[in-house]
């Protein structure tokens, strides 16, 4: 049965973005927060129904004529993501209002965040690859604008562009992949694609389609080798980093991989690509996180580690890994969003984000310290936090992975130990270590800023105490969607003394060791220039540089700025093209002439000829324009004589306007200058003119020689009145039968108009600006 719920959710988001952009900035925040809260309530209300395995499906969005088959669908997987998006969104709106208090950019930031929230909700609820893609790209664009919030800063612009190009480039790959899959499945509906699994896998382009989708998801979720954009995106204000670049947007790639997992889960390439790239990402980012001292960049790299772990979990086949993935996704969103908000508070209060200059803040900001400690303990995976549950599940999934287990555990070890160490740095060292002087003396910020971390860290503890609730209402329905079959989930905090626990303890030990050595390890790792040289970001930079240089060279070659040469190129290509085609295809032909009778209508053609000759002989530009006008009016007369009144009218009007415009334009330009071409140039131009003239003549003769196909004309003539209620066939074709063409043409007009306006503005004399 159709359910309007998903549609309502999107409408609320849209309305909030619209209202938020007109009311005062205080209300913008209230409206956005209220919208997020309303969406949260709606989602929570539908959770029991979805847990009972009923997906809420809104087919309202189907538009078969645009090739959109599916609608919006809220199932278990979408619900988990949507709850995170709305819930963390609510906290971020509250937080942002205080964090950027009094900043003139606050309203724009909040509205863009609201648009982003709506697009994210649309992405996860879309049951159609086209709808999904549109929302997906909207999140990329929102991310671009949000990263470049401080657009006066060149580095912010550069990082925003990098994020946009990497995710946008991946988006193109994704579009191609999704289209291939949709073609193979015969439908764009995602549930339809999953149902048509056999057809999708049997298609000749199945492998390229899958790899393209994977590339798209990897760029979005910052997997190796595309991971470099995410740390750079940290130039954005902290609310943005919290929301987009840790909790939600970067999970979108993971989401889509999970969404398509039912189709590909048994494929060898899918399993191994995801597993190994995910692991490589996790390990690389863990290593890179250890050598950073900027609070936000450290967090960014641990986010990449988490994303790598998630991708790896989707890649591993057994059922346990899907459960682990969903649990970890939720858990990570809780602690990482909390830690980002805390990083923002520390930055805001102390005036620095450099870990080397911070320490012992607990006495000055106790509330923040408590929240940070809770979040960090969940991050380190200690009981009784929900992070522990997730970590145990991940280890179990790795142990269950059969022959892969050994490799998974060894590589995963690095990531886990580093995560533990960094959790220690972010809580113990930052808040309880020795005090260090900071640019500003910190104290706890207003409740609007602390409520986010406190709530999120508290949730980490609460779900750790009652993991069953999380398992029943969120993880089970979502894991079923990832696996494509019902999954039985019972999350427990204590599993007894198992090999998993032992592994856990060993990891913890190494992590603590790393933490103890962090102060000496971080500078040493930072000093390793080799790591910088290996970063694919250098490849990106040189690629960008090469593109700009190639563009410069091409522009210099083609856009040389000599009008005469432009015209010569244009005419030679046209004339030679027509001539060569006619000769090569044996197209030259002469029509059969009837008995030549002198017709009075020939006067018009005489006018054209006289005008053309006069234009060629004219001594000044103005005279040439007048002569060309004669050609135009005589052509209009031809149209009139041969029963094309519409064309004639248009031609008259265009001709009049052209002459007026040209006369005005020329009246003050130095147009009196005589023809300054030398003999050779004049001769060349003459040859070109001859070529174009003879080509046009030959073409017209050939057209006249072939019999006219009357079918189209007859059809338009007879269908005009009954189908389109119009007797003027020309107009009916323009506005009705071929309206899309006309729309395209007026768009071209518009672009030309804008170009001319821009040109006139940019060439305006300096003195009078």
């Amino acid at each position, binding site marked *: 049965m159709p359910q309007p719920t998903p549609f309502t959710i999107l409408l609320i988001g849209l309305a909030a973005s619209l209202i938020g952009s007109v009311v005062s900035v205080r209300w913008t925040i209230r409206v956005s927060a209220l919208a997020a809260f309303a969406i949260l309530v709606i989602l929570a209300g539908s959770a029991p129904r979805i847990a009972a395995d009923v997906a809420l499906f809104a087919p309202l969005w189907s*538009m*078969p*004529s*645009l090739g959109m088959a599916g609608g919006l669908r809220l199932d278990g997987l979408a619900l988990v993501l949507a709850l995170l998006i709305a819930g963390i969104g609510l906290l971020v709106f509250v937080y942002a209002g205080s964090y950027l208090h009094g900043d003139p950019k606050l309203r724009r930031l909040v509205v863009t965040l609201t648009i982003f929230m709506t697009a994210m909700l649309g992405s996860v609820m879309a049951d159609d690859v086209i709808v999904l893609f549109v929302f997906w790209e909207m999140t990329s664009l929102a991310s671009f604008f949000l990263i470049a919030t401080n657009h006066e800063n060149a580095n912010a612009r550069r990082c925003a562009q990098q994020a946009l190009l990497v995710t946008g480039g991946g988006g193109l790959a994704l579009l191609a992949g999704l289209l291939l899959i949709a073609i193979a499945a015969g439908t764009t509906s995602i549930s339809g694609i999953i149902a048509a699994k056999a057809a999708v896998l049997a298609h000749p382009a199945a492998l390229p389609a899958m790899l393209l989708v994977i590339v798209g998801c990897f760029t979005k979720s910052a997997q190796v080798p595309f991971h470099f954009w995410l740390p750079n995106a940290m130039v954005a204000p902290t609310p943005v980093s919290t929301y987009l670049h840790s909790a939600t947007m970067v999970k979108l790639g993971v989401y889509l991989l999970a969404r398509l997992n039912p189709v590909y889960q048994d494929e060898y390439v899918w399993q191994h690509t995801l597993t190994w790239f995910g692991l490589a990402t996790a390990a690389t980012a863990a290593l890179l996180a250890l050598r950073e001292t900027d609070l936000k960049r450290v967090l960014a790299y641990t986010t990449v580690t988490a994303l790598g772990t998630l991708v790896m979990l989707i890649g591993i086949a057994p059922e346990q890994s899907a459960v682990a993935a969903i649990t970890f996704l939720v858990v990570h969103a809780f602690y990482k969003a909390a830690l980002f908000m805390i990083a923002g508070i520390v930055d805001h209060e102390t005036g620095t984000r450099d870990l080397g200059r911070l320490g012992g803040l607990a006495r000055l900001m106790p509330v923040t310290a408590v929240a940070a400690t809770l979040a960090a303990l969940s991050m380190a995976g200690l009981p009784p936090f929900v992070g522990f549950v997730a970590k145990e599940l991940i280890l179990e999934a790795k142990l269950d992975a059969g022959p892969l287990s050994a490799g998974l555990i060894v590589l995963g070890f690095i990531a886990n130990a580093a995560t533990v160490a960094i959790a220690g740095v972010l809580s113990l060292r930052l808040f309880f270590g020795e005090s260090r002087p900071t640019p500003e003396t910190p104290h706890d910020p207003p409740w609007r800023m602390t409520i986010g971390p406190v709530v999120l860290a508290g949730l980490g503890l609460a779900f750790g105490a009652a993991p069953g609730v999380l398992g029943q209402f969120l993880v089970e329905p979502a894991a079923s969607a990832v696996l494509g079959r019902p999954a039985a989930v019972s999350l427990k905090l204590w599993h007894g003394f198992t090999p998993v626990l032992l592994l856990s303890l060993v990891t913890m030990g190494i992590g603590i060791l790393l933490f103890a050595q962090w102060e000496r390890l971080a500078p040493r790792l930072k000093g390793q220039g080799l790591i910088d040289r290996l970063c694919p970001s250098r490849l990106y930079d040189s690629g960008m540089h090469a593109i700009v240089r190639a563009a410069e060279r091409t522009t210099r070659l083609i856009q040389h700025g000599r009008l005469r040469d432009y015209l010569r190129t244009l005419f030679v290509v046209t004339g030679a093209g027509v001539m060569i085609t006619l000769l090569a295809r044996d197209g030259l032909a002469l029509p059969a002439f009837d008995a030549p009778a002198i017709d009075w209508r020939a006067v018009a053609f005489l006018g054209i000829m006289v005008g053309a000759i006069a234009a060629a002989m004219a001594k000044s530009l103005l005279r040439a324009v007048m002569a060309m006008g004669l050609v135009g009016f005589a052509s209009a007369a031809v149209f009139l004589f041969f029963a094309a*009144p*519409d064309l004639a*009218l*248009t031609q008259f*009007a*265009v001709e*009049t*306007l052209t002459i*007026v*415009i040209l006369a*005005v*334009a020329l*009246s*003050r330009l130095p147009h009196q200058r005589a023809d300054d071409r030398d003999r050779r140039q004049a001769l060349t131009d003459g040859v070109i003119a001859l070529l174009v003239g003879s080509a046009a003549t030959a073409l017209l003769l050939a057209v006249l020689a072939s019999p006219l196909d009357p079918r189209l004309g007859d059809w338009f003539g007879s269908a005009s009145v009954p189908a*389109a*209620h*119009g*007797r*003027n066939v*020309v*107009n*009916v074709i*323009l*506005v*009705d039968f071929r*309206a*899309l063409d*006309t*729309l395209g043409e*007026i*768009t071209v*007009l*518009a672009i*030309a*108009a*804008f170009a*001319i*306006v821009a040109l*006139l*503005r940019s*060439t*305006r*004399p300096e*003195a*009078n600006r």
Partner: protein
Amino acid sequence: MIQTLILRTWAPLLLWMPVLVSLYILLRGHNEPGGGFIGGLFASAGLLLYATARGVAASRRVLVLHPTVVVGLGIIVAAVSGLPSLVASSQPYLTHLWWMTPLGVDLPIGTTLLFDVGVYLTVVGMSCAIFFGLLSWQADIDGGQSGTGERS
């Protein structure tokens, strides 16, 4: 710019006559020679004559909106005219819908009219953007001495 007294006096007529004719041409377009494109050209001819007679500033005031805004408006109107068919009858985009007036006379009104108005606006906006731009540009070359142009 040539601004003789005679031309200035006649300017309103030179403006409104073509504009009226253009509206007539626009409306009758579906059955007789005419339509949005030709209508738009006629209307812009009127605006151009007015600008020639009384200056660009005066002509800009007649148009109220900036020409480029008119262009955008035209595109939007034309594009929107194709939407009702998607929503109302889930037919392809730009399938025009018709509404038979209950006036006794046979006068069908369709979304085609909206589309043609869009074309009309685009053409008017485009011609004015070019012409006003050129005139302002020239006024700048003249150093503002003739006082006919204005900066946009």
